[in-house]
């Protein structure tokens, strides 16, 4: 236990189930927007999503093809490394499992590629097994551009920078390839429950 900060009491916190809030996080009701650059705006008519890298035949979907795939609506808690958590967020999207159905690969990692050249890396096993989606709808509405629309990766069990906004594809890789924030001092994996914020955590 650290020492006490004189006079600090904290907010009344009885109304929030603390077992759902990872260490160092606080719950917000709004949806903060934090981006490292300008917000790309890609029309769904010009949008496509691809899977390449360690795969025999790269895969690609248009927006209409994505919408024709089985859709899942799910409610999850999200945790941003800047300390805010948002509970019970409801999304609709396509499970990454669905996109990878039938794919044979030697890869153990993926790199998410995005409009605006953002990248982030995630172990392949963390985007499969029903733990990650390509999400296009938030709270029943089309995902706004400022929150990553038309579609973002959603990997809610990791810090939210892994849930890449404006994602346009996944590259399957043998070697782990750290992405934008991972190269800028943030943790390579980013488990909120282990408070893996920075590289040395």
């Amino acid at each position, binding site marked *: *236990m*650290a*020492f*006490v*900060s*004189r*006079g*600090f*009491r*904290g*907010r009344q*916190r009885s109304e929030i189930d603390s077992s759902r809030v990872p*260490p*160092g*996080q*606080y719950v917000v009701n709004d949806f903060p927007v934090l981006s*490292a650059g300008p917000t790309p705006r890609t029309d769904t008519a010009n949008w496509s999503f691809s899977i390449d890298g360690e795969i025999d035949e790269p895969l690609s979907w248009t927006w209409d093809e994505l919408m024709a795939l089985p859709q899942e609506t799910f409610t999850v808690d999200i945790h941003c490394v*800047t*300390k805010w958590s948002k509970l019970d967020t409801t999304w609709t999207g396509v499970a990454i499992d669905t996109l990878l159905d039938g794919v044979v690969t030697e890869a153990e990692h993926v790199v998410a590629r995005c409009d605006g050249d953002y990248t982030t890396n995630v172990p392949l096993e963390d985007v499969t097994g029903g733990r990650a989606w390509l999400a296009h709808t938030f709270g029943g509405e089309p995902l706004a551009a400022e929150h990553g629309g038309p579609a973002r990766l959603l990997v809610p069990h990791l810090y939210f920078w892994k849930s890449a906004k404006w994602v346009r594809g996944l590259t399957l890789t043998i070697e782990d390839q750290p992405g934008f*924030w991972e*190269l*800028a*001092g943030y943790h390579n994996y980013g488990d909120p429950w282990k408070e893996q*914020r*920075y*590289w*040395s*955590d």
Partner: protein
Amino acid sequence: MERLRVDWRVATVTGVSDETSSARTLVLDVDGWPRHRAGQHVDVRLTAEDGYQAERSYSIASAPEDPAVSLTIERIDDGEVSPYLAGEVRDGDQFELRGPIGGHFTWRAEQGGPLLLVGGGSGLVPLMAMLRHRRAVGSDAPARQTRRPGGLEPLQARRP
């Protein structure tokens, strides 16, 4: 990329000064502080008597050349941490802090100019660190800063 370990350190408040009616600068003596780059931030961790902890991120206001680390904090009235840091805290108080953090939005004089710094509210703080760094090293990089009227405007004039 520097790979400094990001460990918790003890910060002792050595100075408190109001910038505006809602913003306050804390001058800190930090155990073993590694030199930061202008534009970086720290994580602050407060611990209540019952063991409850709260963490928040704050931008560093001081130049890397300044031996003391300064944070300028805007008080959010219904906030949990800023009313404490920008209200309750006084000289000699201690809390935990770790950093410096963030390698993306920084500026070093060697990178040259020109600089166009646009920010509002507490977003002015990391820009002030850059201007203070510019002044501390005698950089002649052209710099322009915009600010929103009613924000932290007096800050530059009063704390060069």
